[in-house]
């Protein structure tokens, strides 16, 4: 359906221009963090290893967290064609759920929130469980909460036309933001929550925690990536891809459209919840001001569209490229751009993201990394095995 215009050319093989484009993009991509760092050199005197390292670790952690959220969106939109314009809601729910579970009791007059079970969750006081068990529980709860919210949104809207869900997700994002801001007693309102404990934080020196942070986020990204790959490159994922191609034909092939769409929406939302959870650990402070439509919904759409809808590697690549370019533009003050541009840089970034989405839709709907040709990993393996044996090739 959607990719109708483009797929044949791709399917017939790569053109030389594709290779050139890929090479250029690859070079730029790999260079991103270095460019960004070069620009910010002024901030770190030469030889300041600690400064350099905090720059790279912060960059990687952010990319990791955003990659999780983009992968969640990829299940929903990339694979199934279900629109979610309210990533913010699931992201925020995941982050706040994590914070109120892992934090201790509220301290001081200006802090009120529910939960604060962190100290009680050390259920088995052995093997330093206080360093990891509460965090595992909190992340699982974040995924669960986001999944349940998705179920709640899906029920009235998913059997209607696709755009109703899109509208409903905008609504749930608005409600989530409002509840967080208005209900002071719940999660401390617009003051936000600070001091979210960090997993395994007691095991290393605080100044070295940034390395551990990268490792933890990296491991979660890897686990989620492989779990999702396994799920989507299976008959389950095949039905989802069928849905994004043609819903009626999928129904005529005996698949329960509503059930599969709901599953996809809920799984995607749960991944977003995990992403939110990781965000809470990585940045240790939450404020409703940080969860804007631009920064908590829209940027993930840009990442997914640019990276390649329907490809988890594309989702990660998109998060990397977009965040890399974002970081570069944040460091622009090293150049003489003039006040006119500089004072408007945040808004220009927003503009470019919007242009990127529309541009990708118009020019290269497949994104950087298109979907795999074969959905099922088993079929892939089988066909490869056949190719390697001297049997006559099946390809025309």
């Amino acid at each position: 359906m959607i990719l109708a215009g483009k797929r044949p050319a791709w399917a017939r093989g790569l053109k030389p221009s594709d290779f050139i484009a890929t090479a250029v993009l690859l070079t730029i991509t790999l260079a991103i963090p270095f460019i960004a760092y070069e620009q910010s050199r002024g901030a770190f005197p030469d030889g300041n290893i600690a400064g350099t390292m905090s720059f790279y670790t912060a960059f990687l952690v952010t990319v990791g967290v955003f990659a999780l959220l983009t992968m969640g969106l990829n299940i929903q939109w990339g694979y199934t064609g279900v629109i979610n314009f309210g990533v913010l809601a699931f992201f925020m729910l995941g982050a706040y759920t994590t914070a109120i579970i892992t934090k201790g009791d509220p301290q001081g007059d200006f802090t009120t929130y529910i939960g604060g079970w962190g100290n009680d969750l050390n259920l088995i006081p052995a093997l330093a469980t206080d360093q990891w068990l509460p965090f595992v529980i909190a992340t699982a709860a974040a995924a669960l909460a986001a999944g349940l919210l998705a179920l709640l949104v899906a029920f009235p809207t998913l059997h209607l036309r696709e755009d109703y869900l899109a509208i409903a997700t905008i609504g749930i994002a608005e409600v989530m933001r409002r509840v967080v801001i208005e209900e002071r007693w719940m999660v401390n309102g617009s003051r936000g929550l600070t001091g979210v404990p960090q997993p395994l934080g007691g095991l290393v020196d605080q100044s070295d925690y940034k390395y551990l942070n990268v490792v933890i986020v990296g491991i979660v990204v890897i686990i989620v990536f492989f779990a999702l790959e396994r799920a989507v490159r299976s008959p389950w994922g095949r039905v989802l891809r069928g849905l994004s191609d043609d819903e009626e034909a999928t129904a005529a092939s005996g698949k329960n459209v509503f059930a599969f769409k709901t599953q996809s929406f809920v799984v995607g939302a749960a991944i977003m919840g995990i992403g939110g959870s990781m965000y809470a650990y990585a940045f240790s402070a939450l404020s409703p001001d940080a969860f804007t439509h631009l920064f908590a919904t829209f940027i993930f759409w840009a990442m997914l569209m640019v990276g390649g809808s329907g490809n988890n590697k594309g989702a990660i690549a998109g998060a990397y490229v977009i965040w890399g370019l974002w970081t570069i533009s944040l460091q622009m003050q090293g150049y003489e751009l003039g006040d006119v541009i500089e004072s408007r840089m945040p808004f220009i970034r927003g503009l470019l993201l919007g242009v990127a989405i529309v541009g990708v839709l118009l020019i290269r709907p497949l994104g950087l990394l298109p979907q795999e040709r074969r959905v099922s990993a088993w079929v892939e393996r089988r066909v490869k095995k056949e190719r390697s044996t001297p049997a006559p090739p099946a390809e025309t």
Partner: protein
Amino acid sequence: MATPQTISPNLGDRLRGFQRSAGNIAAGGGLWAAIIGFTVWAAFAERDALTVGIVLGAILALGAVGLTLIFGVLKFAHFAHGDSMMLSAFIAWLLLNGIIVGERAGSETTLLPVTINDLPGADSAIWEFSFGYGLIVAMLLTAVLTAGMMVGIDRVVYRRLRRRKSGIVIFAIASLGLAFVMRSVILIFWGPTPRLYTPGIRNRIDLPFDVSVLADQLFILAAAFVVTGIVYVMLFRTKLGKAMRAMADNPDLALISGIDTDRIITWTWAVAGCLIAVAGVLLALQAHLDSELGFALLLPLFAAAIVGGLGNPQGALVGGFVVGITQEVAVTFDFLSPGYKFSVAFAILILILLVRPRGLFGERS
């Protein structure tokens, strides 16, 4: 022949069956009774909120009619509607006084050499209003410009997607992308600080039955009334309008009967653009000019269109008032803080989707 036997429904069917019967009860007048009852109650208990609700409802109705027209003819949900309203409100601001943000954030500079306020007496207040005839001129000019802008966007983006036979979801995403482009354009030129068209005092007018409104709000109601009248005549009395409605009802039939779909689409954008501009300026007059407002506005707009049944212009008109009034009156309740205004619109939307997805005026599904 074999006697057909009943099949025991599974849980999903049962739930959906329940949903349908609930919808039918609602169709039997439950929803209407609730709406009318609520309004009458508000007329006694919360008169001020009701007045504001009606004013806001008129604005929402204008926006929702445009939204529903686009949905009817082009079959996709236009997620840039709220942001285009705000952008056109800012265009009107630019035409009025030519001001944009200067080199540094916070400073100001003039962009246009000649502005509407340079006309003699354009900014001296008429009657009890807070503005002069300049605003009306600006509104009309903006309507033309916005119509042009929407047609232009259709040419550059949506038409190319149509040619490629893209699915409705692609259109939705493209319009979301454009929404953020528009919002960023507002921020680049006018910054994040909310603005007002005129700094003057807003005069209150006392009406019978202990009702008091701002003079500007009377203007909003009058303007909305006039524009609605024009759109009504256009839709129901002209050939073009009939063709639009025919295309909304049955695109295939419309194609067969020789309607030039490209022309109809262009005109739909033009009409929707005018509605967007008027609704945007009126909203900015009622509230203020604010880049943040555009996206949040999508909820009441879609709620209004869905309450009336997507694609049904008369329905959207009623829906606008239903949503506007409910939203304003509901936040006077003690348990709802005013911050939940748009959440109320969302609640209405979900309620309608649950009991009557085709809206108040839709057929039974």
